């Protein structure tokens, strides 16, 4: 029984690490622009496609393909914000959120139009799991590729934290997130900060999308399938809080896996979301959020 617990916690940590990167992207955009950008799902898909194309067509290794996924999804994010969402933002967060959901569906169908519905796999072998013996307790199963993906997530998070803490752009972003009026008085160009937040946020979504594509395969619904847990992670952690998104991702990841011990796996999603309701009931602003929603 103990070994099963350890195994599901491990599985949950690995799937939480996958959710964390797009959740950070979502929450970053929320922190700066103050609306939930539901187009994050299709940007995950765009990133996954960028990654799979440079990997299979140009032979780029996974690490470089992740960079491509970040850059392409980030660029698409800036373009879609400039062309569509920027005009909707002044009408309020609800309009912008609905606009973003619509934009997401349009982007998903552009991807479908260009690449059809067929699943695409990365040109990488699937590796057998490591088996780690814990003596009398039994064996733990660890996926080498999931571990690599979790490491890639951690690296992306570390770079983001360094960017926000040590660079001028990062500090400007935090200033706008903290207090837009004060930031404007200080002469910070809000449009430029918005573009950068979109680039970083959607880039991270694309990065996370490709990580999920590496683990499964890539099709036009890649982002859409995981977007609910991604939102949930951001909300549980406290919208707008980056450490919160990370914590939320682990809560959602571990919560869902944990439920498979107690209940039939088909209830996994429901149990995960029941846990989220519980967190929000006890703490409406989320685990690490500053403001109540």
């Amino acid at each position, binding site marked *: 029984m103990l070994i*099963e617990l350890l*195994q*599901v916690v491990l*599985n949950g940590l*690995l*799937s939480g690490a*996958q959710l964390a990167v797009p959740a950070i992207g979502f929450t970053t955009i929320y922190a700066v622009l103050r609306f939930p950008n539901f187009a994050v799902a299709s940007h995950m898909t765009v990133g996954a496609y960028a990654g799979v194309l440079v990997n299979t067509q140009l032979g780029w290794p996974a690490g470089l393909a992740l960079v491509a996924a970040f850059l392409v999804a980030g660029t698409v994010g800036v373009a879609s914000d400039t062309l569509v969402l920027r005009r909707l933002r002044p009408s309020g967060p609800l309009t912008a959120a609905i606009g973003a959901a619509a934009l997401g569906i349009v982007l998903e*169908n552009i991807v*479908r139009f260009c690449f*059809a*519905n*067929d*699943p*695409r*796999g990365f040109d*990488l*072998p*699937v*590796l*057998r*799991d490591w088996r780690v013996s814990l003596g009398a307790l039994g064996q733990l*199963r660890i*996926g080498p*590729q*999931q571990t690599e993906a979790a490491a890639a997530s951690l690296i992306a998070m570390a770079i983001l934290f360094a960017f926000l803490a040590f660079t001028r752009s990062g500090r400007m972003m935090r200033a706008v997130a903290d207090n837009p009026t004060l930031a404007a008085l200080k002469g910070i160009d809000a449009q430029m900060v918005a573009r950068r937040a979109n680039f970083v946020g959607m880039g991270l979504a694309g990065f996370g999308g490709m990580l*999920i594509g590496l*683990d*499964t*395969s890539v*099709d*036009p*619904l890649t982002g859409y*399938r*995981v977007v609910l847990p991604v939102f949930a992670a951001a909300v549980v952690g406290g919208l707008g809080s980056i450490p919160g998104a990370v914590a939320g991702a682990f809560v959602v990841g571990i919560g869902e*896996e944990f439920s*498979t011990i107690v209940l*039939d*796996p*088909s*209830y*996994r*999603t429901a149990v995960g979301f029941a846990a989220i309701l519980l967190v929000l009931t006890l703490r409406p602003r989320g685990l690490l959020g500053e403001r109540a929603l």
Partner: protein
Amino acid sequence: MTPSIPRRAALLGGLAVPFLANATHAQAETIRIGTLTPQTGAGGAYGPPMVKAMRAVVDEVNAAGGVLGRKIELISEDDETNPDAGVRAARKLIDVNRVVAVLGTWASAVTTAVAPLCWENKVMLFTVSGGDGITRLPHQGYIIRTQPDSNLQSDRAVAFMLGQGARKVAYLSAQTPFAVSIYERHLQDLKAGGGQAVGNVIYDASKTSFRSEVDQVLKLQPDSLFLNSYQPDLLVLLRDLFRAGYDGRRYTLGYAANDKLIAALPAEVTEGLVSYAPSPDLDSPAFKQVQTVIGANPDPYSCQTFDHISMTLLAIAKAGTASGPAIHDAVRAIGNPAGTPVTSVTEGLKLLAAGKEINYSGASGPCKFTPIGDITGCKFRFDVVQKGQSKLLQLS
């Protein structure tokens, strides 16, 4: 005060006239037939070729002058592999486009949801869904199903697994309306054949990892696994089974283990995977025609929808009227054993125009149906994946 009413009525009448004229004009001109297929969602890989096959038939018939002197208009809608979207699309087809038949519903959940709309409005529904409940709905003859029901499919699959030496079979099933009923039928069939079904782990197909589910099912120590999945979740399951080190037998459904899935996975992950599917009639000229439209390896659904549109058009010609009830009454008469055997619609239409009886059989085989709309006989094919290529193991 009184003049205001006639004036308003006149205004309304004036507004309505162009629409009415338009509607009657269009009805006299074309026969409208709807297609409702999954262009997106879990079945998204199948919808496009299904429609392509139907359009090929319509183009051929229109080029030869249409049916009853009228051109055929095919109106295609996407059910998104989702019952809600399916119902919305079916409403549009029935209420707005006034189609006489809806062809090609794929997922059982979608078919079940749109069927009542069809029979209430006396519109024929042709489906490729395998769910058992479908033909048992109170449809008054308005459903025709070209796919064998899941009991017949289960019986054939279990017989095959037992023949390959499977004795202890465990199940991983996507959460669908038939995840339990298929398992129960297998359980019964395996028991009767000296094997046993040791458990059914039902999973949420939208997840991107099934590690915990795989752990649960492997704990049952099966000698074979049956994966009752759709394509996107099967992709993930096969990876997770490989990672977990499972090398035993794996059986699955042909619609999940298609060429696209095999192409998207490394060869070592799919090696030895056996899938089965109701098979089209590979020797039929109609099947060869589908091949020219879709490619060398058409899926069974494209073949079936090719027959859906063919049967619809032949039934309209046989009845002499283009309406749901006319198709309903005539669809079994075009498979008259005493008639001239035909496999091509245009040929069949010519014979019917000359007042002859026909016996149509199509790309999916003989198109004969029970009173509740089930197809009476069907071939099955079993394929195995070897070195990333699907090979025919048995056709029976």
